[in-house]
């Protein structure tokens, strides 16, 4: 190689800036959530839900909050020995995703384009499924209701609209909606307590 070329390459190498590979973004007790995990979470969410990933500081901060909640829930799921989803369970969630694309190659290309791997997507889905199961096992026994509760719930749904549909005909659907709502309320309330009692520290440098 000519000396000038060597010099040019060396200069290029030296001129390249130091780049932060990764950093601690949030700590939850002794658990670390890194900046790259937040970005990966945003990319996977975008891949699953459709829109382009928004990795702005605001989005990253919101995603960090969701990852903190996810950690708190999965930790409690681990403590309470909530079973891990099986490979089949995860497969059942992945298949509809693949079917969105014309072919396997197109699916893999979409993964590459989103900057995520299939393993990461599966891991993400498995975590979500375990959280759902944990929520159901942990809080479902607390959700008790009467017909009157369901009727009031139906009335609240139908408020301001046309006459409410027949109660008995829609009972199952109402029950599901009612239970889901109560489960989410119970989970939110539990999370609020746990967040309050758990030291969570956000590093501002990770959200600039």
């Amino acid at each position: 190689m000519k000396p000038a070329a060597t010099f040019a390459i060396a200069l290029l190498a030296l001129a390249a800036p130091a780049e932060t590979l990764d950093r601690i973004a949030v700590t939850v007790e002794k658990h670390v959530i890194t900046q790259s995990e937040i970005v990966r979470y945003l990319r996977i969410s975008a891949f699953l839900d459709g829109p382009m990933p928004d990795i702005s500081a605001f989005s990253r901060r919101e995603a960090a909050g969701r990852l903190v909640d996810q950690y708190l829930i999965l930790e409690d799921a681990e403590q309470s020995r909530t079973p891990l989803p099986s490979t089949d369970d995860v497969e059942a969630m992945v298949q509809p995703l693949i079917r969105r694309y014309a072919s396997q190659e197109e699916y893999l290309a979409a993964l590459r384009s989103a900057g995520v791997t299939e393993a990461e997507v599966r891991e993400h889905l498995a975590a979500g499924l375990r959280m759902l199961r944990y929520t159901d096992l942990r809080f479902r026994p607390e959700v008790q209701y009467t017909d009157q509760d369901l009727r009031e719930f139906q009335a609240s749904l139908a408020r301001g609209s046309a006459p409410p549909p027949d109660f008995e005909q829609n009972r199952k659907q109402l029950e599901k909606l009612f239970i889901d709502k109560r489960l989410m309320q119970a989970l939110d309330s539990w999370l609020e307590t746990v967040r309050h009692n758990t030291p969570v520290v956000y590093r501002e440098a990770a959200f600039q």
Partner: protein
Amino acid sequence: MLLFATLLLASAVLGQTSPPGEPASFEGRTIARIEFDPPDQPLPRDELDRLLPMGVGATLKMDDVRVALRKLYETGHYTDVSISAEPAREGLTLRVSTERAYFLQGVTVDGASDPPNRNQLISATKLELGTPFSERDVLQAIQNMQERMLANGLFHAGIQPLVRRNPETGETDVHFQVDAGKRARFQGAQVRGDALHPAEKIADATRWARGLGFVPFPGWRDMTENRVQSGIERVRQLFVRENRLQARVTLENINYDGKTNTVTPTLFINPGPVIEVRIEGASLSSGRLRQLIPIYEERNVDRGLLIEGNRNLIDYFQAQGYFDVESDFVETPETNGLQVIQYIIARNARHKLVSVEITGNRFFDEATLRDRLSIRPASALRYRYGRYSEKLRDQDRDNIRDLYRANGYRDVVVEAVTVDDFEGKQDHLGVRFEVQEGEPWSVEALDIEGVEEADGEYLRGVIQTSPGQAFSETNIAADRDAVLSFYLNNGYPEATFDWSQTPGTEDRRVRVRYVVHPGDRQYVRDVLIHGLDTTRRSLVTSRIRLRPGDAVSQSQISESQRRLYDLGIFAKVQTALQNPEGIEERKHVLFHFDEAAKYSFTAAIGAELARIGGGVTTFDSPAGQAGFSPRLSLGISRLNLLGLAHTASLQGLVSTLQQRAISTYVVPQLSGNENLNLTFSALFDTSRDVRTFAARRWEGSVQLAQRLSRANSLQYRYAFRRSTIDENTLKISPELIPLLSQPVRVGMVALTLIQDRRDNPTDTHRGVYNTMDTAVSLRQLGSESEFTRLLLRNSTYHPLGKEITIARTLQFGYMQRLAGLPEIPLPERFYAGGNSSQRAFPDNQAGPRDFTTGFPLGGTAMLFHSTEFRFPLFGENIGGVLFHDMGNVYTNIRELSFRFRQRDIGDFDYMVHGVGLGIRYRTPVGPVRVDFSFSPNSPRFFGFQGTRDELLAGTGTLTNQRINQFQFHFSLGQTF
């Protein structure tokens, strides 16, 4: 052209920004260097390299970067970490940027106004030694301290924190300077709710107003938390005394008036109903009722407590012999402020437990099983009706069963059968424990997994489970403790132990498998010492048994702590591991000291009630008479002199019998050897505890005490003393006065060997206690009288069953004059008799006596032997002793005799016997002792009736006297 293109490209690269957390192009490139920023890191570089999943020469993976961040954070030594990369000539340079964490080194508080005292405030901070520290902790600590001070009326308190960081060790020292301000005073009490009493009475009950007992003084007391709480409790007691057991008195708020710096607490009172507990079918004192029905203690009435009270009543009556007692209760609802609880008791016939039998036992003998029983058949004194209840019987049954199971008899069945009208006698009861042992289970094989070969060899030596031995879960639990303790003491704090069993090749044979996960080993990085003010550091370090590089051993930390406490100069020695949750391999071990106060003062008053010799000038009662001697003692000690843990002290004692001042200088753990203690002492003593004379003594001595082993110790001693006898106090024949009243100097070296193998020195049941004391007094040592002295003691204790002990002791003493004065001086002779040697005599009254006055002269030989039969007498705390004492002090060794009879009135060289009964009342400091002794051959002697002048003039009269055959002794602790 190429250069231009390169610059253009470089400029493009410089302008490029990868999305945060998404480094573009470094993954897969070779790592050429790893740097830390700052270069001075809290962990050694080799440990950091061990923690990082990537190394120089490896290719960069983003997953490794994430793991590295996680690992570094998990060490606990960092509050923030980021990793960046930049291209270098040979590849990539990784830069790990860190912010270090700090750990608490210690908390100090100055300016506290007790209460709360310094230690209470330190405790309130909730800052723990060695734990990660953050500024938020200081704010929380101040808030906690302020709460404590507010609760104690310190409304104007200010707290100024001072945080000092030590980057070298990563420690933070927090000091709080407190300005307590003036304490608020009470200014009355507001009452809300249904008080039932006038507000003045409630306020009086709080005792927040000044006063002494029931005598009121003007004004109010200072507010303290303790006074607030005790005031509330006193108000509650006001209602409890009216049987309003559920009365609730709560502190609603405390109104503070800043202008007058006074507080007025508001109490909310709910008196609740009057609770009346009635007993039908039996009578019980109200005190016993309060003891048995827990509603009084718990201050609450609920069904659970009433059921517990019912059980207690049944147990109580069963213990009284009403083994068939039935009891129930009825709870009536509250009416007009009254709630009645009625216990209905049917005692039925009174029984007597006359027999406790055990059948079917082969592996254990009956004595072994009986040792585990708490039921007792009736005995004449201790348990008139026996000790029995169904609860106790079932507990005993379970104890027998557990003993068998612990020894491999897993199929054992134990039945407890109670037989009424035992052997046809009405109301007699017999209990039979029927044991069906079954066949023992044994261990066929033991596999231990997860341990190093050498450790496994050691562990097999300490664990109880082994092939061929009985299989028992009790042994396995003990093994678990032994294994975990071994690992904990060898630097493995996270060690775990699991076990499982599988059937063996034969019936009742089990294969046992132990799985041990030692976890990561921790080593001592350094030992950090803080809190020393006057104490020399070398004194402390020489007693800490941990050095950098050692495995972190909890037992060594505790042992070091014990050795430091043994110095007696520290009020508190705290130990901790820095960053206890961190995963780093090498840990700082922290020792934080709180030095004790430099000076300590003691003062005590007391009195001696005993047979004390007659008056100073009169010759009455040579054998002593009951007397009373008040005493006052004062002491001052200066601890930790020169910062070397030396102690200087001065003690004074003044009583009508003795005046004493003693000054000592103690060097503990001489030269760091915890088995050596050196003591210098100087003594001045004037006493007349020997009735014959009053002696004045000046003495200086030096003693080196050496502990040879747990049981054996040696004392080397040199003493020099000058004794003067006040000849005006000498109650002996006038012709002997010039000989025996001379002042005398004695210089003596002595060696004492002590062997103590007793199970409990204050109340021994088993063991041996031997002492040998030899001394020689020589002219070369400054002595005017040359003699040797030998004192031997041998005591042995033999248990008979669980509660009976045979104890015996032999004491032998011998003195031999060598040269110098013609007689061994009076103060140096043996004097004995009394509650610790021969109970047939009053204190120091044994041995030869003056032929004219009858006062004891001491002897040069002595021999005593005592035998005691110690047994339980009444209940759990009162025991009895039957004893026989024999022996005497003899004129000299040649006159030592076992003869029973006194030859004539001038013969004192014979064996005096005493028999008697003693009572022992067990207390936490040893038994309180009362002994009554009768001597069939107590000595007779001539006493003198008259004054000193009459004695000197040769007038006065001789009278026949005798040591009272009945003696009474009162003391603390067993006789020997």
